[in-house]
């Protein structure tokens, strides 16, 4: 357990000042939330860099390097942090009590996530196996990735999560496949804290509505798939989406750059992050128009995504989606979409009450949703379209592919989509749907 707790503590120590620097965030909860996301990514990238140095993965080396990074981040935040966002008024005590169900869901998730070693097939065959082999090797084992792993373990999958598992094992001194479950609760809590701050900012004196809205999102932030990459991906994608939303609303290149960095970290977590970087760019342009200064904010995500592409290309770590003639399969799938539609009809994501509520909320607040939440709608819609294209491109049987991935893929966009609807519903309940805030003048950040 100690390795997991050290990872969470160091992620916060590195990430909170980075979040303060990158997002102008002033709310304590949101700083913790963003801190966990930025900090987890920073530790993964640090492990990647230390892997290039012989002996770089000793316990002393990785903890010292993380502490140095935290000190540098704090020093930069103290000297260079921009003017913070206005502070939020404190929640009244009765409204705080209403947050209890969200805390219970997170606590229950932590109990579930740590009850047993991770058992997901993809943990044993891929994410956990890579982490364990890297840790045994004392560095990223490129030879294994490009060799034996090639035929079974999706060597092309990004390695941020295995690097974090290796960090935990290195600090712990032994392989840890049970306590790592706590990371999934921490990441869920992180994105929920960020969403809670955004909801409060949208309706600062909302009384009980915002706490109920936070509770409505709590179950959507946690993931049942412990040991695989979707939990971290969901949190990074959710945090990125909310930052891009704020950045386009405020026309703030700094916030867009911070959101883009989280998109880039998502690309280090799952291949779907590559398309998320593109979806993020499309959403920013669709929302804020063609503004070169804002578009420059998208660079961190592109650079990070490209950085993983370099070793992947050098070692020829190819995706199974690329096998044979993927374009031909997509064109054929578009001509004959029957198998995909049948599979989507068979393997639904369930939860009709949730989707019914989202649909009803979207209809009630259609006008506000289209006007104010365009970024989230375009981002999620584009990403879903990429997922459908990937199904058409797959060389595997579509029914099998949909059965074992659709629910997980939908969970990636479900959180930001639900946030878009919930924030509009909050506005309707608090202000009758009036404007969230005065539009800000374009900043020179």
């Amino acid at each position, binding site marked *: 357990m100690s390795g997991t707790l050290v990872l969470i503590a160091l992620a916060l120590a590195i990430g909170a000042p980075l979040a303060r620097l990158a997002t102008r965030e002033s709310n304590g909860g949101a700083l913790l939330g963003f801190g966990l996301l930025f900090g987890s990514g920073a530790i993964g990238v640090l492990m990647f860099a230390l892997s290039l140095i012989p002996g770089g993965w000793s316990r002393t080396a990785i903890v010292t390097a993380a502490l140095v990074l935290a000190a540098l981040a704090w020093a930069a935040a103290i000297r260079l942090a921009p003017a913070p966002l206005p502070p939020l008024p404190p929640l009244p005590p009765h409204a705080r009590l209403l947050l209890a169900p969200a805390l219970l869901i997170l606590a229950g998730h932590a109990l579930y996530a740590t009850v047993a070693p991770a058992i997901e097939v993809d943990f*044993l065959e891929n994410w956990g*196996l890579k982490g364990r082999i890297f840790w045994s090797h004392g560095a990223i084992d490129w030879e294994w990735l490009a060799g034996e792993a090639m035929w079974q373990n999706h060597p092309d999958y990004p390695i941020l999560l295995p690097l974090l598992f290796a960090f935990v094992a290195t600090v712990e001194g032994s392989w840890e496949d049970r306590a790592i479950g706590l990371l999934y609760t921490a990441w869920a809590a992180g994105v929920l804290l960020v969403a809670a701050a955004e909801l409060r900012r949208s309706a600062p004196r909302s009384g009980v509505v915002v706490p109920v809205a936070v509770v409505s999102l709590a179950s959507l932030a946690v993931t049942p798939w412990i040991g695989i990459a979707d939990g971290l991906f969901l949190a990074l994608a959710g945090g990125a989406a909310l930052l891009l939303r704020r950045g386009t609303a405020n026309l703030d290149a700094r916030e867009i750059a911070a959101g883009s960095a989280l998109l880039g970290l998502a690309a280090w977590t799952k291949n779907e992050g590559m398309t998320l970087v593109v979806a993020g760019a499309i959403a920013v342009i669709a929302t804020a128009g063609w503004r070169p200064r804002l578009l420059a904010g998208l660079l961190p995500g592109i650079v990070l995504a490209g950085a993983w592409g370099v070793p992947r290309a050098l070692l020829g770590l190819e995706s199974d989606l690329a096998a044979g003639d993927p374009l031909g399969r997509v064109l054929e799938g578009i001509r004959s979409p029957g198998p995909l539609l049948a599979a989507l009809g068979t393997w639904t994501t369930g939860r009709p009450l949730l989707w019914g*509520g989202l649909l009803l909320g979207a209809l009630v607040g259609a006008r506000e949703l289209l006007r104010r939440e365009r970024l989230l709608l375009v981002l999620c819609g584009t990403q879903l379209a990429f997922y459908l294209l990937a199904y058409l491109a797959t060389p595997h049987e579509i029914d099998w592919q949909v059965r074992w991935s659709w629910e997980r893929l939908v969970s990636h966009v479900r959180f930001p989509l639900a946030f878009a609807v919930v924030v509009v519903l909050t506005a309707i309940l608090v202000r009758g749907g009036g404007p969230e805030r005065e539009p800000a003048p374009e900043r020179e950040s």
Partner: protein
Amino acid sequence: MTEPSPDDRSRTASQRGMPHRARRLLASAALLMITFGGLELFYLRMFFADRTELRERLAGLPYRKLPGYPEFLAAVMEQTREGDVIVLLTPHAGFEEGYRYAHSRAAYVLEGRRVLAVLGPDDRRDPGAFDRADVVVGWRVKPPPGIAVTWDGADGFVARRER
């Protein structure tokens, strides 16, 4: 007279389209549907679950198709050394008919060892795996002729190759 702002116009339109009170009622209903529709009661039940029983049940799940396999892997771990390259034999005829299942679990559990596969995804056998291995292990199969078995258990064997 001043021109109404876009927000004023939309608010007017919204109110014209749907009475304010009805809109709030529907918004409340939608928020409650999202809250309860997304609620995962399983996590709340964890407060009352028998964690020991649940842990044992979950920990056995990845091996349920190969009874006795965890014990076999524990014996292999004991009989081999860190850095050993191991080739795994099982009675499965096809890669997706059980060999992948057995190999992936062995590769994960046998920490510090490399577990080579003799069967690939296309069901093609890789005889070269024997040449690269220090140790041959077999689960519920007989040892191939010509190798000296160093451990023989109820469910399998371990044979270290002389190099």
